[in-house]
């Protein structure tokens, strides 16, 4: 099962490597990992997407909680949550047909073209991982020049929140 674990941790040197090291040392899987400081500069928030059986996910959360730098964490998948990922895609957009088609496709997926040259579109898109996958599948392989994805980040729905 895919799980999204959201972590508040001390914004200290080496904290990221403790988490990454834990995953490799215990043979846990990391699908994506994002991290940035929060509104409280002493804290960072990390989002890890991982896969594993219920038992493995329980161990992952327990082992993470054991890290001294980890202040609090939550498995977002325990209840309703919103997940978003940012993707930037560079496509070859030459000729009127292609340019119109990619613009329309970006519109359908609620993306934006954020950089334009006479031969290139750079499209920005946010959404769940599935949506981004679908967008990529809709583009012809030959057009795809470069893809960069941020990895998922997420937040719980409603009242539930991860705060110190």
């Amino acid at each position, binding site marked *: 099962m895919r799980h999204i674990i959201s972590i508040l*941790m*001390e914004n200290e*040197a*080496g904290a990221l*490597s*403790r988490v990454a*090291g834990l995953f490799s*040392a215990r043979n846990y899987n990391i699908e994506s990992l994002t991290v940035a400081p929060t509104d409280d500069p002493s804290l960072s928030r990390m989002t890890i997407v991982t896969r594993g059986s219920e*038992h493995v996910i*329980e*161990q992952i959360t*327990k*082992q993470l*909680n*054991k890290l*001294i*730098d*980890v*202040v*609090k964490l939550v498995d977002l998948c325990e209840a309703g949550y919103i997940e978003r990922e940012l993707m930037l895609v560079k496509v070859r957009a030459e000729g009127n047909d292609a340019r119109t088609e990619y613009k329309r496709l970006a519109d359908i997926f609620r993306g934006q073209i954020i950089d334009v040259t006479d031969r290139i579109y750079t499209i920005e898109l946010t959404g769940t991982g599935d949506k981004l996958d679908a967008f990529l599948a809709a583009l012809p392989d030959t057009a795809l020049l470069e893809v960069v994805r941020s990895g998922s980040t997420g937040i719980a729905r409603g009242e539930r929140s991860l705060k*110190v």
Partner: protein
Amino acid sequence: MSGAALHRPRSNEFPKEIDNVKLSGGEIIVQFLKDEGVEYVFGYPGGAVLHIYDALYGQEDIRHVLVRHEQAATHAADGYARSTGKPGVVLVTSGPGVTNAVTGIATAHMDSIPLVVLSGQVPRPYIGSDAFQEVDAVGITRPCVKHNFMVRSTEELAEVLKKAFYIATTGRPGPVLVDIPKDVTDPNYKIDYVYPEKVSLRSYNPTVKGHPKQIKKAVDLLLSAKRPMIYTGGGVVLSDGAKELVDLVRKLGYPITSTLMGLGAYPGTDPQFLGMLGMHGTYEANMAMHECDVLFAVGARFDDRVTGNIEHFCPAAKIIHIDIDPASISKNVQVDVPIVGSVPVVLADMLKAIEQSGREPDREALAKWWEQIDQWRAKQCLAYRKSDEVIKPQSVIEALYRVTGGDAFVTSDVGQHQMWAAQYYKFDKPRRWINSGGLGTMGFGLPAAMGVQFAHPGARVACVTGEGSIQMNIQELSTCLQYGLPIKIVNLNNRYLGMVRQWQEFFYEGRYSMSYMESLPDFVRLAESYGHVGMRIERPADVEGALEEAFRLKDRLVFLDFITDQTENVYPMIEAGKGHHEMHLSPERELA
């Protein structure tokens, strides 16, 4: 594993009337250690820690022990910690100083031993430049410490040290490394120093008290058992929970076994004690595990050497598990009633709950259960064939037990001798049996014995070892001479790496690949060249006399080189991947 061995610092000895004494980083470290109540620092100097060594010079509150290799410093501090419950303190230099210490840090980590390791680092401006003796100490030690720190400024030094001691000694204890760049200890940069009395970490609050609901559930289950079994581990020792354990177990009248790490928490000579369990555990302990209907696990972590094949582990049992580390619960084996908390606190609450419930264990079922256990006991799984010609290694441990009245501190290395020591020396007190259980570190025994002897100057300390292990830290014989440590080294010399040889005999059709050592030193002359007493014992009739003579030499280290049976194996044995009920007994016992 469990443990809340809170260590109490001495009162602040810093002269209160002098408010504005300014100290350098090196002086802050020494003053802090005094204020923290540290007696011994085990270490080895080098470039990056010279300022600290200069601050240590000429003061007598902190005794620095100069080892001969940094690995030994960590093991000595570890032995000190295991035998006292107080944190062991290590001081090493940067680069090779700290890499040499890593084996000892990992050893302490696996067995949850509180250590504070201070390592020198190159000066801040040089970090990352591949400077002389630079290594990423925080990175290298990260997977084998409870936590580690790099000190960024002289100003934060005292606070970081306080956090290090606090983290190392509370909750599930463990080693903490503090990496200190040389310029942080610059003697020319002096600042105000105040001993930080308190420490607060918003992200670290170990649970000590068990949840009342869980305790009630556990008590109900425990009292409903027909075939109960109690399985205890190192957490009982670490948390100083022996008294509470004995009270509860005697009250219940249930059988009890222990892991290698928990030996001594419950008296080894008590009739309710079934001996050690696991790969080389007793027949009765392993069979009782297999057949029990309620298993009560206390401060133990279901290690693979204990459980055998998980598929066959306690198939009929509901399991209660007390541990201070939530991550140890349901890690390898799913448990039915988890209780997070410190062993003595939870056990005391359970005993109270039992008394208040007015319920009694099912005495009738228990009597039948004991009858069954006594049948298993009658197998006498630890009996071995005696000999008048060749020294049986087991007999040396039995003689050691008799000569020391069962009251010595016994350290060991790793291998067959370690298992025999665990099987045949009946520990009645906690913190007497000092060995590397989790990591299985050869070379642990002698330096650990040094730490024990420093902590208990008048006590009898024996290091049970083999000719393989002892050579991994033999250089410490020199340290022992310098500090006059009267350790008795009991070397079970079978000219083989015995446990390797045993596995090769059983599982590799006797292909003894690299388990035989040629060109062993003459240990008697080796001991003598280090200034100690050496004895070589070759006949069974001389074993006990030699040990008696050795312990009569109260102020001398004695190296007893026992030439033992080369072919002896450790029994009983559960092969890796087999269940508790699939034990091999010794060939003679199988026939019995």
